[in-house]
């Protein structure tokens, strides 16, 4: 399986090539190179997955393989940073997800970005992102993960700000970078604490289940919690930033300013689940050493899922709805990890989370790509400018409907299976949480079908020109992803991925499954009644609770709260005095020094007149003085 290295290297080379030669290549050539490279990567990833999953289990457990590792940085005899490739069930699964979605996005972009300025730049950034994301999932140690973690942050920043002439896009890219970077600060501190106490970065060692490794950290307490809990909570903070968990979610809705395929790839399918992946990667540590942090993760995830689902119900921008839906679904995955235990049936939540990650990547990428096709057709993001599109865009309509059914959890689409496992795991952990999550699942179905009916049904709005179906390069990925969405639910996922690597057979919990289907159907029925034809009821409902509606529309004033905290409190109370001190005391001291030496040199420069006669005069005087001295003294 040594060829797996190529999966990483090829996108990197493609990034270098397209980045350096970009402007010299024709856009079509650049796009084809990027797409072809990704195609090869995808094939290699499938081959890797086939080889890995067909290997015999060791004692019933799928073992992790470290393909190769290079020492990159050595601090002390015991602590060094390595770079390498680690293959285990979740990293192989992620390889497949990333290369598949990325390939689809590459193909789709050939049509969507056609004729855009900076087409080559776009493809080189896509390659950079794919490279970084792949490097992130195959990291052998937490520090390598951190390096690639920052790299995906950079490529996300570059791609959100792709339309750099648009002020909103520039602001959004900055916001995304700063918010995630702030969260990554927590991540870094967490890594440092963890490695300080355990003397290792390696996932192999950390996940080996050796409790003595953590005894030093667990024994030390800081502000009432063990240092171990702090470290793991801080690491989760990094994950929460990337995965847009409340309250660090504010960057994701704005990130929709980027090109739509980018939203599909980065902000729906791959990068935003990096946080989930991080928790899953360190899951044995979370589960064995710090179960209280897992509870925190579950609570944060559940709250985020609820919050984002409520906000998604009232947004009018199609991509914003999808963004909040993504936040909500990632909340589901976090909850699922949070309620999970290790091994066997206890590990159901872990398996469900990874399963949902897989299916969600497919159908959410599909939703975004459909949204791209719709935006391509009507040149607007606003739902009110759409309506009645089903006649004009049959392929987009059907694939969008499939994705909506999947995310709503209607059998036999993939979302049903994964979401059902999550709900089952949640009910086993706590019935209250289970009910809450079921309610959120209902909300999901409701807002997705609100979106669906507003776009494809309802009143036809005036279009500048008749909307038309997207070109082949755009519909092909849609059909492919729709096909995956239909069949992915039947994959015996537990045989591939489970918390302890043993085979786990998924049994549908019929009580939970039935209940969740009923909830979804009821929610869809409500959405149908409200939005299929134009009806005054939604407006009247909004008017009945103006406070709630407006608050939800403004995303519960989270952005305003952030602005208040940063601008009013931090700027005025912290930054301004520091800036004053810097400007007046520190700069003042050195400016004063410079002023003094300048004045002194002005005083002295008269001597350096450059007039030889003056020098000669001084020499003469000096000679006379010396002569006089010699005469007197001798």
């Amino acid at each position: 399986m040594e060829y797996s290295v190529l999966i990483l290297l090829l996108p990197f080379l493609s990034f270098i090539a397209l980045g350096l030669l970009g402007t010299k290549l024709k856009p079509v050539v650049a796009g084809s190179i990027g797409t072809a490279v990704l195609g090869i990567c995808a094939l290699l990833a499938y081959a890797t997955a086939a080889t890995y999953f067909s290997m015999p289990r060791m004692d019933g457990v799928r073992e992790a393989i470290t393909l190769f590792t290079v020492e990159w940085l050595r601090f002390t005899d015991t602590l060094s940073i390595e770079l390498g490739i680690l293959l285990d069930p979740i990293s192989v699964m992620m390889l497949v997800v990333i290369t598949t979605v990325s390939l689809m996005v590459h193909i789709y972009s050939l049509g969507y970005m056609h004729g855009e300025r900076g087409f080559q730049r776009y493809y080189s950034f896509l390659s950079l992102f794919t490279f970084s994301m792949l490097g992130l999932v195959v990291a052998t140690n937490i520090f390598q993960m951190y390096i690639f973690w920052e790299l995906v942050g950079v490529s996300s920043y570059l791609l959100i700000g792709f339309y750099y002439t648009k002020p909103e896009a520039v602001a959004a890219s900055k916001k995304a970078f700063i918010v995630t970077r702030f969260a990554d600060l927590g991540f870094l501190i967490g890594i440092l604490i963890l490695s300080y106490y355990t003397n290792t970065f390696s996932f192999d060692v950390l996940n080996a289940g050796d409790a003595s490794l953590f005894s030093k950290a667990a024994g030390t307490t800081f502000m009432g919690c063990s240092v171990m809990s702090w470290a793991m909570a801080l690491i989760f903070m990094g994950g929460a930033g990337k995965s847009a968990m409340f309250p660090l979610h504010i960057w994701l809705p704005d990130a929709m300013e980027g090109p739509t395929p980018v939203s599909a790839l980065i902000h729906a399918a791959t990068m935003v689940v990096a946080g989930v992946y991080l928790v899953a990667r360190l899951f044995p540590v979370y589960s064995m050493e710090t179960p209280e942090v897992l509870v925190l993760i579950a609570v944060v995830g559940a709250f985020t899922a609820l919050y984002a689902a409520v906000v998604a119900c009232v947004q009018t921008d199609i991509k914003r709805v999808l963004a909040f839906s993504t936040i909500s679904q990632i909340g589901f995955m976090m909850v699922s990890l949070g309620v999970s235990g290790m091994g066997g049936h206890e590990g159901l939540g872990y398996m469900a989370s990874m399963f949902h990650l897989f299916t969600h990547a497919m159908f959410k990428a599909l939703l975004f790509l459909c949204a791209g096709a719709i935006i391509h057709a009507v040149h607007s993001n606003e739902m009110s400018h759409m309506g009645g599109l089903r006649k004009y865009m049959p392929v987009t309509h059907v694939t969008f409907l499939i994705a909506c059914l999947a995310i709503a959890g209607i059998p036999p689409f993939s979302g049903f299976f994964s979401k059902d496992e999550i709900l089952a795991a949640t009910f086993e952990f706590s019935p209250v949480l289970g009910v809450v999550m079921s309610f959120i699942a209902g909300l999901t179905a409701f807002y997705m079908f609100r979106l669906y009916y507003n776009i494809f049904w309802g009143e036809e709005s005036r279009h500048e020109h008749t909307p038309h179906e997207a070109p082949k390069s755009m519909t092909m990925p849609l059909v492919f992803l729709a096909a995956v969405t239909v069949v992915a639910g039947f994959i015996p996922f537990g045989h591939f991925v489970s918390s302890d690597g043993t085979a786990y057979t998924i049994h549908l919990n019929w009580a939970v499954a039935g209940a969740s289907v009923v909830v979804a159907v009821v929610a869809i029925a409500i959405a149908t009644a409200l939005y299929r034809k134009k009806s005054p009821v939604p407006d009247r409902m909004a008017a009945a609770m103006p406070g709630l509606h407006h608050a939800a529309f403004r995303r519960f004033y989270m952005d305003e709260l952030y602005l208040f905290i940063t601008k009013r409190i931090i700027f005025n109370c912290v930054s301004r005095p520091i800036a004053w001190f810097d400007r007046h005391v520190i700069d003042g001291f050195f400016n004063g020094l410079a002023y003094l030496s300048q004045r002194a040199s002005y005083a002295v420069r008269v001597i350096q007149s450059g007039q030889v006669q003056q020098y000669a005069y001084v020499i003469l005087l000096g000679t006379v003085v010396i002569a006089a001295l010699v005469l007197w003294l001798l």
Partner: protein
Amino acid sequence: MEIHMEYYLVISTIMFFAGIYGFITRRNLLAILISIELILNSVDMNFVVFNRYLFPEQMEGLFFSLFAIGISACETAVAIAIIINIYRNIRNIQAKNLNQLKD
């Protein structure tokens, strides 16, 4: 009447300090050049006088002064060339105006 060595030395000292005075006080480049020539000539005279009175059987002082005269002629030629160029450029040979290289 015998001419004593001191007479020569007094003359050369007067010439030397007249040269120094002129070098320091004159503002015209040509005057400065003339002052330098005065200084050089006073020194040449000293060489010849010391050679003549103190070591009459030797010739070093005479030859040395011949060399010095030759070199000072070259130096004058170069200096005149520079002064002519300066004059062509700034139409002026006052030393206080020559500050283009300073800043």
